[in-house]
């Protein structure tokens, strides 16, 4: 049943104050798939996720979520979806345990105590169960929120920047867990600004100005951008970066320490420009490299003319 679509919506549109914040976006996610949502700030990721779980009513669009109509069957969808908000939205004046118990009751879960206990254990928060959620550090709040929204074993997880502010070790644990859940058939839609997380998704979609610009596996997205990338290892990376800026074929220049990443959509023109620049001196060697996802995204961002703040 792996071909079954957990999310299948088309033409999703939402405007605020006459501005299309989500503009004709279609989302298709197969069951058990991890779909990454990427895009600059204000591109409409949060709004799209809210539309999917019925928190906002779309101006246009239709489709199904877990087989239920997104416009009419919000109630049924809510029961089977775990939504983790971008901003911490559990009760800061309740303890960790009380928050979990509240969620368990609202979802009418059986074996409430057992579930809360196991969740606390898995989080490693067993001995801090009586601590007020508001006094947790930012990263721990995120981990609590995730634990709370998978407690009712949802069939679809909507995660809005779940790892913002979480340390690398916890982030890795988090993603390991996401993959485990997906293997058991849970579908995950996750928004993120981290490239390494994007690479751990089965598929990614890139949004800008409320429009979906590209979609596919990481390799497909990188290949689809048709980008050529060269790297130059030189001590004068910053100076070279300024020299290359704006030359024909050069779309992107970014220094990473002593290594300069230069990318462009027109590979031949870029190569010619680099050869000419090396000849002008000071000389440098340039080698063809594989464009990274970040290169692709920055290019996409630069191409998008204007962005809503």
């Amino acid at each position, binding site marked *: 049943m792996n071909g079954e679509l957990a999310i299948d919506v088309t033409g999703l549109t939402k405007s605020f104050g006459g501005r299309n914040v989500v503009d004709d976006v279609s989302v298709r996610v197969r069951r058990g798939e991890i779909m990454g949502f990427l895009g600059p700030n204000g591109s409409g990721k949060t709004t799209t996720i809210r539309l999917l779980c019925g928190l906002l009513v779309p101006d246009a669009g239709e489709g199904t979520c877990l087989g239920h109509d997104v416009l009419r069957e919000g*109630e049924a969808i*809510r029961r089977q979806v775990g939504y983790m908000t971008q901003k*911490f*939205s*559990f009760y*800061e004046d309740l303890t960790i345990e009380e928050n979990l118990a509240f969620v368990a009751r*609202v979802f009418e879960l059986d074996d409430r105590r057992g579930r809360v206990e196991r969740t606390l254990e898995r989080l490693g928060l067993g001995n801090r169960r009586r601590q007020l959620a508001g006094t947790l550090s930012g990263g721990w709040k995120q981990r609590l929120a995730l634990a709370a929204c998978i407690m009712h074993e949802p069939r679809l997880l909507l995660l809005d920047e779940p790892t913002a502010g979480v340390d690398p070790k916890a982030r890795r644990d988090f993603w390991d867990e996401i993959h485990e859940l997906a293997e058991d058939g849970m579908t995950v839609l996750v928004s993120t600004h981290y490239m390494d997380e994007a690479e751990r998704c089965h598929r990614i979609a890139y949004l800008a100005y409320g429009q979906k610009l590209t979609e596919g596996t990481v390799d497909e997205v990188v290949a689809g951008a048709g980008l050529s990338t060269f790297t130059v290892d030189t001590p004068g990376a910053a100076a070279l970066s300024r020299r290359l800026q704006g030359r024909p074929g050069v779309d992107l220049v970014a220094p990473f320490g002593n290594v300069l990443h230069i990318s462009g959509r027109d590979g031949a023109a870029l190569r010619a420009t680099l050869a000419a620049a090396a000849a002008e001196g000071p000389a440098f060697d340039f080698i063809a490299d594989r464009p990274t996802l970040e290169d692709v995204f920055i290019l996409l961002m630069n191409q998008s003319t204007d962005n809503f703040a």
Partner: protein
Amino acid sequence: MSAHTGRFRLSLARLWAMVVKEFIQMRRDRLTFALLVGIPIIQLTLFGFAINNDPKGLPTIVHVADAGPHGRSVLSALRNSGYFRPTEEAVSRAEIDRALELGRVQFAVTIPAGFERALRRGEHPQILIEADASDPAATGNAIAALSRVMTNALVHDRGDVTPAAPPPFDIAVHRRFNPEGITQYNIVPGLIGVILTMTMVIVTAMAMTRERERGTMENLLAMPVRPIEVMLGKIVPPIGMGAIQVAVVLLAARALFDVPMTGSFPALMIAVMLFIAANLCVGFTFSTVARNQLQAMQMSFFFFLPSILLSGFMFPFRGMPVWAQTIGECLPLTHFLRVVRGVMLRGNGFGEVAANAWPLVVILVVVTFVALRRYKRTLD
């Protein structure tokens, strides 16, 4: 001037920065602005036009057992005084008691059988005027005016009697339910209602606004809770709080002011629960409208003001003009005051409580309907 000394100076530029910022914020906060303008106007209207400490046209039940001409002229004199407005006629003692106990009338006038004959024989018969004195302020002026009214009635009626002569009959005034005219008897039961209005509305007025302000609303909406569940969940816990408040006031009323409890306590408690629920629902409705907690507070205050002034708590309800009484009838406190005074002072039981408390049920249903309509299941 060095930078060092400058630190201690008042900087006009910085002051201006604050002033500009505050002005912008004030302009955005429309409700505060509305309150600044609205409250003085409302206060002025209520105190200027609605409140009247010399209530006239008080509903009066009359029992005429002797329909002779003198009895008639006494009645018309009462009516002409402006204080008494005969609204119903009783044929039995029981009817009078019931009308007074329900609080339907303020006065009962009884012209006894054989009044006319006794008058002719110079036996000084008695006209009985019973007053519902649970609110001394409502009846005080009318009673004070009685002897003048009677003398004038006779002057008017029989030109031969000199104005100074005492009327050839007696008027017996019975102040019922609060014979000594103790104001506390009226105020303290009313306070139960006022305290509940003040606290219960505020408690739930914060309910949804707090969820919205803290961002927990988004999570709540994403979970499968229904609006009615949220509403009841927010309303049930404070009911217990309200019950404790009532217990405290009742005990204090007994211990400190000796206020009696002549009626049915269980009946009163049922009305208390209804009244608490109505106020909590009003507060909940505010919280679905208010954008922040300050607005919720302001709305509660806006509701509290007419509740105090137009419900009959501070000033006699019957002294107010019709428009003010109409507003008063829409407020839960008005109806609760009738119930609580009825039970504590006039010995009301379940029947009388039901007769006075049904508007609370109507208010409760209407407000709940509005609240659930206002409650949005989305963030739009």
